[in-house]
């Protein structure tokens, strides 16, 4: 039963035309090259037509020519804000297919880095969302100040600030430096103090409340029907997180809560992501305390990895939702079919239903709250 009413108020005596406004590929607010054709009646949006594909790069076809280590770089560039999570998904898929078991130390390193990357992704979201809502770049600067600190930490471990190419099937590429624990603790302290700034700017702000509370409410039933996942689904009240529902890697050893919202509106989605950052910090602290010493790559790995015949679908909880990799192997060292199930693509398909009947300004805010990454949507 749809909860959206598409009728337009009143019977006008004047004959009026609806304007088509093209929120085009180049626009400061669309988070990438994404195009929406809005049909507006005054300020009300009566129809929305999303157009994607401006960033299609062949991320599913090109890996069919690459061996299993070369594909990891493609996953960095799919969801380019949460690279460790995507690499984690792909590497776990290969491990499932081949039966390799990664070492304990590398599992802990993977979890710590993936959760820190979730924090950087959510910081970027808060910065971009507050620019959409109208703050003139202050929350953006605060978010990026802390994000730089985490990226410097990543640079000390892997060498790169964004496209890491660090996880490998069987473990990680090389060991972390000796001051890993102290630096990680510094990073966590910095994130905790930075979150206070962001909370002060957004959480109780009356204007943010007036613009976001009650906007685009989504019920749990609608969310499941539309295929939403991640923070969008949890904001409607359903406690569903792949790290607890189908635990992968070593997530079943850690204690953390799953924040949920009540109404599924924009405000809940924002507050939830702030809370998720705090839960990620909890996981990192627990993992740091338990991390063992040992090898970081499984024993007896061959130089070229040949994957036996079979298929696997592996999914992880990315910061945007469920990120999945479907691999078909045929005994050679190159995958036969490599498909990526991107969270932003499925979340974006619900944009039309969520935004009809709202104002033009609201559509921008709703698009910001879905938190899309065009690399994932178009691949």
């Amino acid at each position: 039963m749809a909860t959206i009413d598409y009728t337009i108020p009143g019977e006008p005596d004047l004959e009026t035309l609806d304007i088509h406004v093209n929120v085009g590929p180049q626009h400061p607010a669309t988070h990438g090259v994404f195009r929406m054709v809005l049909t507006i009646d005054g300020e009300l949006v009566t129809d929305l037509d999303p157009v994607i594909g401006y960033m299609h790069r062949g991320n599913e076809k090109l890996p069919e020519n690459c061996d299993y280590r070369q594909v990891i770089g493609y996953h960095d560039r799919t969801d380019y804000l949460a690279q460790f999570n995507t690499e984690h998904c792909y590497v776990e898929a290969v491990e499932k297919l081949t039966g390799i078991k990664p070492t304990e130390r590398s599992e802990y390193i993977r979890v710590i880095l993936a959760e820190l990357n979730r924090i950087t992704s959510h910081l970027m979201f808060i910065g971009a969302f507050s620019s959409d809502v109208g703050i003139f770049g202050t929350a953006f600067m605060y978010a990026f100040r802390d994000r730089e600190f985490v990226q410097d930490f990543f640079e000390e471990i892997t060498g790169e600030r964004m496209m890491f190419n660090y996880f490998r099937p069987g473990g990680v590429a090389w060991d972390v430096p000796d001051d890993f624990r102290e630096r990680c603790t510094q990073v966590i302290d910095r994130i905790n103090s930075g979150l206070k700034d962001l909370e002060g700017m957004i959480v109780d702000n009356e204007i943010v409340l007036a613009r976001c509370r009650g906007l685009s409410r989504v019920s749990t039933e609608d969310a499941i029907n539309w295929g939403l996942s991640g923070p969008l689904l949890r904001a409607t009240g359903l406690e569903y997180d792949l790290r607890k529902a189908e635990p992968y890697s070593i997530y079943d050893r850690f204690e953390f809560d799953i924040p949920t919202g009540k109404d599924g509106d924009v405000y809940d989605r924002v507050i939830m992501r702030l809370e998720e950052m705090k839960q990620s910090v909890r996981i990192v602290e627990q993992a740091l305390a338990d991390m063992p010493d040992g090898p970081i790559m499984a024993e007896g790995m061959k130089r070229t990895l040949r994957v036996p015949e079979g298929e696997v679908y592996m999914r992880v909880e990315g910061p945007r939702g469920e990120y999945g990799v479907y691999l078909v192997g045929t005994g050679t060292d190159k995958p036969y079919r490599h498909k990526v199930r991107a969270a932003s693509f499925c979340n974006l398909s619900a944009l039309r239903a969520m935004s009809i009947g709202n104002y033009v300004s609201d559509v921008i805010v709703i698009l910001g709250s879905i938190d899309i990454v065009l690399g994932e949507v178009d691949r």
Partner: protein
Amino acid sequence: MFLLADNVWLDALLRMAIVAVLVPVGVILLTWVERKVIGRLQQRLGPMHVGPYGLLQGIADTIKLITKEDVRPDSADRPTFELAVFVIVVPVFMAAVAVPFTSDIFVRNMALGLFYFLAVSSLGIVGFVMAGWGSDNKYALLGGVRAGAQLISYEIPLILSAVAVAMLGQSLSLYTLVQLQDDTPFIAYQPLAFVIFIIAGLAELYRQPFDIPVAESEVVGGPTVEYSGIRWSMFQMSEFVSLVLISALASLLFLGGWTWPFGADNATWLQVCLMVAKTSAFILFFMWMRVTVPRLRIDQLMALCWQILLPFAFLQIIINGLVLVYDWPSWTLTILSGAAAIAMGTVLHQVARRSGVLYQTTGASQRVGSVL
């Protein structure tokens, strides 16, 4: 009032020339100040590269804008498009004529100074609508229509709060109003009018939280989107000159201008210092608000004006009227006005907390835009 030259006409011409030269130079300096202040509030340095501490950044920007190619869309309505800029810039400079900066430094000391200022600064609104229509661009049209609606609506609380002060001072001349404030500024008697003036002034300047006509993340630039080069710099200049003028007006009307706290007969240099300090305080406050507060949506903005600011502005005038007619002592004015100001703050607080639930719906058939 001293004459710069013997002939009255020559004197007027010289004064206007001084204003026409000093004001753009002041604007160039003010762009540097704004970028530095915003940078510090965001925990970063501002411009540092051009000149020592980036002081020449305003000049570099001006040179860049002047030498840019003047691009005009082919289907733009040429007279409307090109005249819109002048219709915005000229009234702002005309309004600068009526504002006295100290007891000796002004262009004209008019008996109807306040009335002239408010009347002339309303003319610029037509320019925005002309820019929005003449650009032949849907974003410009949206921005221009929003700008027209917002600026016209917020004129009324601005004028009513200025009228309340004029009722207290029993005169429309800015000079007289300042001379009357030598022992207590009017803010002590009229806190409600002060708050309404600041909010309506922010809206007239289309700054955060009221900058929806030129919102960068939605209608990219609004009515100014198709202008480039020197025409666009005219828009910016008019915004900054209005900023200075509204801040100057606020310090003249409410904080006592050049007289408080040192009395009416002080040296010129002290008067200049006081005026500069008070105007700068308001300018810095407006910049601080710009960096911190998100923007309101257009219907929330209009609801704020017509359903909250306007009744409270009328309330302030009624309070003033009662106190003047029944000849009550001045402190009753402070108490009544202060109580009304606190009441307005409470109403705003409650409305903001409840507003999302009250009128945001997912169906288009419900009436939107009301806060009460």
